[in-house]
């Protein structure tokens, strides 16, 4: 395997493939996180072989409507906080783990904050200073989007 390969596996093969890579010497967990692709959510984990510095990025694709994946904390205890964070921020549900406490949020009624469909109320409530169209020279033809406000937000 060359330096920093990317391997995509089905969700059912996630733990098995990671276990194999760990067995081959990739024993150091760099990170585990998710990417919101709107229709799907990708979960990615990066493993590194401390001796050779070879690295592998393992990716699996989950349906956005039901992002469920097996936990790898039994194999790599260091994945614990990463899985808690990924669950909290992207709504991924990891099976086979007991601790489901959120890491950073404390108000339990918010949608996963890092999903592209989750609006940030603070950006919607605040008045964007760039909305003033009266200023001379401000192009009225180009509808400017406030930085930080995504077109994928459900509500406006």
């Amino acid at each position, binding site marked *: 395997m060359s330096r920093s390969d990317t391997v995509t596996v089905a969700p059912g093969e996630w733990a098995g493939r990671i276990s194999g890579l760990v067995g081959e010497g990739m024993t150091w967990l760099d990170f585990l996180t998710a990417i919101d692709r709107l229709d799907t959510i990708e979960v990615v984990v990066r493993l590194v072989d401390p001796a050779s510095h070879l690295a592998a990025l393992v990716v699996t694709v989950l349906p956005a409507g039901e992002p469920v994946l097996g936990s790898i904390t039994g194999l790599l205890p260091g994945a614990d906080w990463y899985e808690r964070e990924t669950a909290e921020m992207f709504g991924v549900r990891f099976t086979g783990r007991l601790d489901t406490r959120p890491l950073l949020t404390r108000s339990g009624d918010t949608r996963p904050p890092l999903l592209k469909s989750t609006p940030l109320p603070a950006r919607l409530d*605040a008045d*964007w*200073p*760039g909305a*003033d169209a*009266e*200023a*001379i*020279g*401000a192009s009225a033809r180009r509808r*400017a989007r*406030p*930085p*930080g406000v995504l077109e994928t937000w459900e509500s406006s």
Partner: protein
Amino acid sequence: MTAPANARGVIALIPSACTSCMLCVRECPTWCITLDSHTEQVTEEGARRPKSVSVLDAFSIDYGLCMYCGICVDVCPFEALEWHPDHDYAASSRAGLVQATDQLASWATRSSASTTSATGSNPSLS
């Protein structure tokens, strides 16, 4: 205690160079810049008809929100914003970190770092 001359200490405004195009306001990721202006009709001697000029009424940067990314400095087409190394402007209130036109303009003349892009008359130190 002096910082290097190119330190990102504070952003100075050159009011005479600002055309109120609002690019800096729109591109700021933290929404910390506000700008108010109006247009006036000016007829110059010998001109056939009046032209519109923008008049900057108010410009402010909320340094409590500013993340010092420099996007505003980079995006200004008229080099009306520039970095200066001064960093001694802490305040005892949130409002004290919101700097308006005069204070922003004064950084351009107060700093020991020389700048080459300033045009027009500089405001006197207050």
